């Protein structure tokens, strides 16, 4: 493989496995063999650490206060104020948690880990009203992002966020609630067609008693657990939740389902079933070891074939993080990142439903595309954002409380700074405009783009033009 191929392969690898790559790093890695670069992604310079936006003590105190307030029939004005303050505080923490994660993705030395966390965030999609639970689930997804899928699945299933979101708190002996059981099989493991309605009912009975306590820890409640015999996948026994998850993992269909989803996230919107099968066999044989699976994927020849390069539409978060990472952007008002996520249709921690974001072409409609084309020049050139996203349905209560429906400000400055000197210092003095375009874009730079940029006198103009092109939406 010649140097030029290696250059574009490593760029492709880092775009898909991470959030792009700086030019000097790319030059450096191009000198080495591709599989060395792949392995390098798995050796983290620093261990992944938890997000700690919401402190456990703070959460516990709030829980105590809330349960005492909820126990009262009438609240004094002060107590009402206390309750409002808690809600307000939680909303602020939810925003902070979102921003801390985005900032983490922008600055992480461990991009693969965060990219995998982003994948699991969409796979185990969940909305939690309590930011502490949201943070817990996010940390579970990060800690196991490259570990064992079995551990990941078990911990997610036992997290307060998911137990609450999929109503397992209401799943009790004699009154089963099937929500968790159904989504576990339909969306998290097997996919439709690989289980029956009876399996769902019987699994739901097995998960009765799975709950969490006031301090936000999983707790098995034997009193509400249905300990009678169940028949699941044709076998009869006194199954509990763990036994159900084990049986689901014993089915190779689970491996196929997860690998297909990973393939559409990392490789191509349209899965190649031969490749998916190849991955699934390996994943199953390796006992659901995610690192083994991902190494296989990034080392596969087909991962670097023409039809799999430069053809994926970046998700809004990938787009924002790539851009911010590439140009060392500082957001003086980070809230703008939330507004942008929401306007572009991927508001982290707020997926549309338990099926997650559909992705691919679904990201693009006329208005989201127009905004995407505009964002680079706004961020890099400090422009004004003339856009006013929709309120999230969960914010309706806040809107309802506002005494007057005051029009939201229509224009806001993005108020961000790119570190141009730092970015430009990465490149050789004689870097050509077309070379810059080729570095920034994943699709091949054709005649049109070459002509458009070659008349520019400085690289900065080329950068702003190139990042405003539809080609920049792809990776």
């Amino acid at each position, binding site marked *: 493989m010649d140097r030029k191929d290696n250059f574009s392969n490593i760029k492709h690898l880092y775009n898909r496995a991470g959030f792009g790559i700086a030019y000097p790093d790319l030059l450096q890695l191009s000198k080495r063999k591709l599989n060395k670069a792949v392995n390098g992604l798995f050796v983290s310079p620093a261990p992944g650490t938890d997000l700690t936006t919401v402190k456990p003590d703070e959460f516990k105190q709030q829980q105590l206060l809330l349960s005492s307030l909820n126990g009262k029939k009438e609240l004094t004005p002060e107590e009402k104020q206390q309750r409002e303050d808690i809600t307000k505080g939680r909303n602020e923490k939810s925003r902070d948690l979102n921003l801390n994660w985005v900032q983490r993705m922008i600055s992480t030395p461990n991009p693969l880990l965060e990219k995998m966390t982003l994948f699991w965030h969409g796979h185990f999609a969940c909305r939690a009203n309590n930011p502490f639970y949201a943070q817990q689930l996010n940390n579970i997804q990060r800690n196991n992002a490259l570990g064992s899928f079995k551990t990941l699945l078990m911990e997610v299933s036992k997290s307060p966020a998911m137990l609450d979101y999929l109503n397992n708190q209401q799943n009790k002996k004699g009154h089963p609630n099937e929500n968790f059981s159904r989504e576990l099989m339909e*969306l998290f493991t097997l996919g439709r067609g690989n289980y029956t309605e009876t399996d769902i009912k019987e699994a739901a009975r097995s998960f009765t008693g799975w709950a969490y306590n006031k301090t936000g820890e999983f707790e098995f409640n034997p009193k509400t657990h249905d300990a009678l015999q169940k028949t699941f996948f044709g076998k009869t026994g006194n199954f509990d939740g763990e036994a159900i998850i084990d049986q689901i993992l014993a089915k190779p269909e689970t491996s196929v389902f997860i690998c297909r989803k990973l393939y559409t996230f990392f490789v191509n919107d349209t899965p190649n079933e031969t490749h998916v099968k190849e991955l699934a066999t390996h994943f199953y044989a390796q006992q659901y070891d995610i690192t083994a699976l991902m190494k296989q994927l990034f080392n596969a020849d087909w991962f670097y074939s023409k039809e799999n390069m430069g053809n994926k539409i970046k998700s809004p978060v990938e787009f924002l993080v790539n851009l911010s990472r590439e140009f060392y952007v500082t957001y003086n008002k980070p809230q703008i990142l939330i507004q942008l996520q929401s306007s572009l249709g991927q508001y982290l921690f707020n997926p*549309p439903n338990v099926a997650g974001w559909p992705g691919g072409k679904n990201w693009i409609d*006329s208005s989201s595309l*127009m905004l995407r084309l505009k964002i680079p020049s706004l961020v890099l050139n400090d422009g004004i954002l003339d856009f006013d996203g*929709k309120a999230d349905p969960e914010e309706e209560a806040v809107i*309802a409380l506002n005494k007057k*429906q005051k029009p939201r400000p229509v224009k806001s400055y993005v108020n961000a700074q790119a570190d141009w000197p730092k970015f430009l210092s990465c490149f050789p003095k004689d870097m050509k405009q077309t070379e810059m375009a080729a570095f920034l874009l994943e699709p091949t730079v*054709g005649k049109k783009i070459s002509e458009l940029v070659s008349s520019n006198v400085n690289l900065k103009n080329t950068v702003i033009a190139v990042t405003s*092109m539809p080609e920049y939406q792809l990776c």
Partner: protein
Amino acid sequence: MERRDFLRKAAFAAAGTMVVPAFMKPFEALALDELSLYKNLVVVQLSGGNDGLNTVVPFGNDIYYQMRNGIAIKPDDVIKLNDMQGLNPNLSCLKELYDQGWMSIINDVGYPNPDRSHFRSMDIWQTASDANQYLSTGWIGRYLDSNCQTCKFPYTAIEVDDSLSLAMKGLSKKGIALKDPAALFRNTNEPFFREMIQSDKDHLDEENLGYLYKTMIETSSSANYIQNTSKIYKPNYTYPNSAFANQLKTVSKFICSGLKTRVYYVSLSGFDTHVNQLNQQGRLLQQYAEGMNAFVKDLHQNNKLEDTLVITFSEFGRRVAQNASNGTDHGTANNMFLFGGRLKKQGIYNAAPDLANLDNGDLKYQVDFREVYGTILDKWLDVNNSQVLNKRFNTLGFI
């Protein structure tokens, strides 16, 4: 012009027309009177879960007063429509429309196994899915996908907002979101944007890049069409001063100028009234009613009311009993409003909610919302509803 230059340009132009795929031809060039007679649908979304029982008040039912002693609307204040139901006094502007036969109310619209989460229930209403089904396309989006006679333009469905709702997204076609046609027109006519879509068309066959270019070309084409068609029309009706009324004013401008759009989507937020509901909901209902009053009368004055059907929905109603904070919590079935000049059944469409026969404190639905959609798809948008709703739904007699 030099002869050589001319030849080169002419050759390029000729070659250009040969490779331009059909969807790239400017839509403005299609025969203008291809679809001169057609009907509009306007969808009004009330976000947050509007309390239907304090909107259309069952003043004839004692249970209502027993369960809501802090927030019930007094019988004397209700604008009575029959012996049982009447309008919230803040909806007084609607009475005039009601009396003209331009308004209809469907009670207890919902779906089986209702979900009380705003997000999920709105998802269900917008995608027209079952409660345990997740769809990534909306019902209007799938209407666009159905490729019927009436929906071939990229501007067939317009949402008057900055971003597009899921309801308007299909698999291969999507509605267009715009608040201000002039602003979109300016954006798509920026030199850089024009240069991008006018230069080489090599990428149009490529899967995703082609899709991006196609979206840009259609956006540009629609922006030109919408701006050039609607700017000729001079609005001649005075609207109240609210963001909601402004959206309706924009829709009216589009309809009255003869835009070949079939579906419009607008929304009004803030209906999640858990605490001290009376004033909050009252203020919103007033904004809603004043806006609708102006809109319907404006359309009537411009002879467009016969061709227009307006529907109003919210993701759920609220529980029958009030809560301890003089508000109401998330519930289930709710009423829907219809407006138009060609309603077959005017006034109240079906029986009032049965407050004595509740499901865990919530109203039971009488009408599946997909029967309402299905009726509109079949009878108003001329497409078989099973094609859009994934199974056949019964149609109702309101149009």
